[in-house]
């Protein structure tokens, strides 16, 4: 996972570059929570453009980060959902809670 913080907009972007499953999610979760706490962003975006695989661990990851970001006063969004990622998020109903960046 790569991350970038834009100080001016208080925007933190995580670009996930690994396959998302129960194994990889543990590391992603630790790093994301650490950086959210460190930068105290106003908005957090998870970018899925480079994600070639995701199972239901991705749903748990997002719900968990949504709660954590909310707790610290940040909004959470997702971006660049691939077809397979979107299929799983649609099934879970999580997109009713977490908006897709760049979509009205």
């Amino acid at each position, binding site marked *: 996972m790569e991350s970038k913080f834009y100080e001016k907009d208080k925007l933190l972007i995580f670009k996930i570059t690994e*396959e998302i*499953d*129960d*194994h990889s*999610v*543990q590391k992603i*979760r630790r790093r994301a929570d650490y950086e959210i706490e460190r930068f105290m962003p106003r908005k957090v975006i998870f970018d899925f453009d480079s994600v070639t*695989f*995701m*199972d*239901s*661990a991705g*749903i*748990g*990851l997002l*719900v*968990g980060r949504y709660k954590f970001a909310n707790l610290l006063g940040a909004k959470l969004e997702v971006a660049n959902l691939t*077809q*397979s990622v979107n299929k*799983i998020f649609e*099934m*879970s109903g999580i997109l009713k809670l977490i908006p897709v960046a760049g979509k009205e």
Partner: protein
Amino acid sequence: MNEQFENEMKLEFLSKSSNEAFARLTVAAFASQLDPTIEELADIKTAVSEAVTNCIIHGYENKIGIVKLSAKLYQNEIIIEITDNGKGIANIELAKEPLYTTKPNLERSGMGFTIMESFMDDINIESIVGVGTKVTMCKKIKKEETNQEQIEQMTSMP
């Protein structure tokens, strides 16, 4: 021409989460003999990942055990069996409910069985408490339609 496959493979591995990727990639490589679409292959990988994760997190509760996986190809169908000798499921109907999880503290979504059910054509769960769980899943690869599409694409090329 419709070629008929009959093939089988078996795999045993330790219930470590690092083996989730190994299991789904192995099944995907095996399933590719049926010439599935990218989407069908993604469905199979996701369903295998969910079932194997269940063995590791719920069956063995992160203690080390053995996960057994077998896959059979019959005509245009893949039949996958994933077995653990873990704690078993007391109430299968409840476990299958969307969003139901016994481990919300681990950020589990409770969507595992729902995903397996909707990504595969058929799923059967057998479980005995204290003995283990066996999940059998089938998926038909819609070979003829795909071939037809490919032929159309090829013939429409300049």
